[in-house]
């Protein structure tokens, strides 16, 4: 196991590459989910305001 993590002395380069890929791809997934919540909340807020003004 430790030999596997060691990557023949290239651990830093290999795991930084895989780690960065993981972080960036996770961010790609999370950001549209947050954006959708924000959008829907914004549209709902506007609808409530319109109804109150009527």
């Amino acid at each position, binding site marked *: 196991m430790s030999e*596997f993590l060691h*990557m*023949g*002395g*290239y651990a830093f*380069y*290999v795991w*930084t*590459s*895989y780690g*960065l*890929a993981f972080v*960036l*791809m996770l*961010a*790609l*997934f999370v950001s*549209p*989910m947050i*954006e*959708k919540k924000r*959008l*829907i909340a914004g*549209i*709902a807020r*506007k*609808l409530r305001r319109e109804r109150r003004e009527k």
Partner: protein
Amino acid sequence: MRFYHRLASPRHFYQIAGQWIPWLGAISLILLAWGLYEGLLVAPTDYQQGESYRIIFIHVPAAWMSMFIYLIMAIAGAINLVWRMKMAEVVLVSSAPIGAVFAFLALVTGSLWGKPMWGTWWVWDARLTSELFLLFLYLGIIALHGAIEDKRTAGRAVSILALVGVINLPIIHFSVEWWNTLHQGSTVSVMGGSKMDSRMLRPLLIMSFAFKFYYGMILFMRARNEVLDRERNTSWVRQIAEGKAS
């Protein structure tokens, strides 16, 4: 043809994309797990580069994606300019940040691979420079779209930019043949067969399919948001916002 027309309507696109997202995600996740297993545990050590070459399973699929996504954007741009199709514009705009992420990932992982193998993080060689230019094209498209208030005008502007920038794709692809570069030539070729051990080639291809499906999922998620934003005054979006529909 009916399916095409349905996808061209924002409302139907929103529904169909919503149904596809979990499937695209599941396929991508399975392929990722399989590709990582094969790439990190099954593929043998390289006789020249030792274990450092395993960066290839991220680097090459990411670089392919950065070009593939750009090609999709250029096609969407052409469709938008010729037929004024709203959904093509949505696909173009939603793809740009995803392509930028993959171009950035290809550059950084290349750097992390270059340091131990070439002894340098960066050289201004044709392959690296043209890929960096691709990242700037993505950032330029994102910035241009953000700078123009009117969505349709912004959509046409980025369509033109995406179409003009497509000239960079063959430059990236052939850079290793046209110029004397530090970057190695292609190891994988569709026509001429690949110069690679099948135990290394297999995870490379699996990872690249995993990234394709991942892009499909993220594209649909982003495109759905874009549709919600653009159609915010329609009754179907209002129903979604009020929790009466999904």
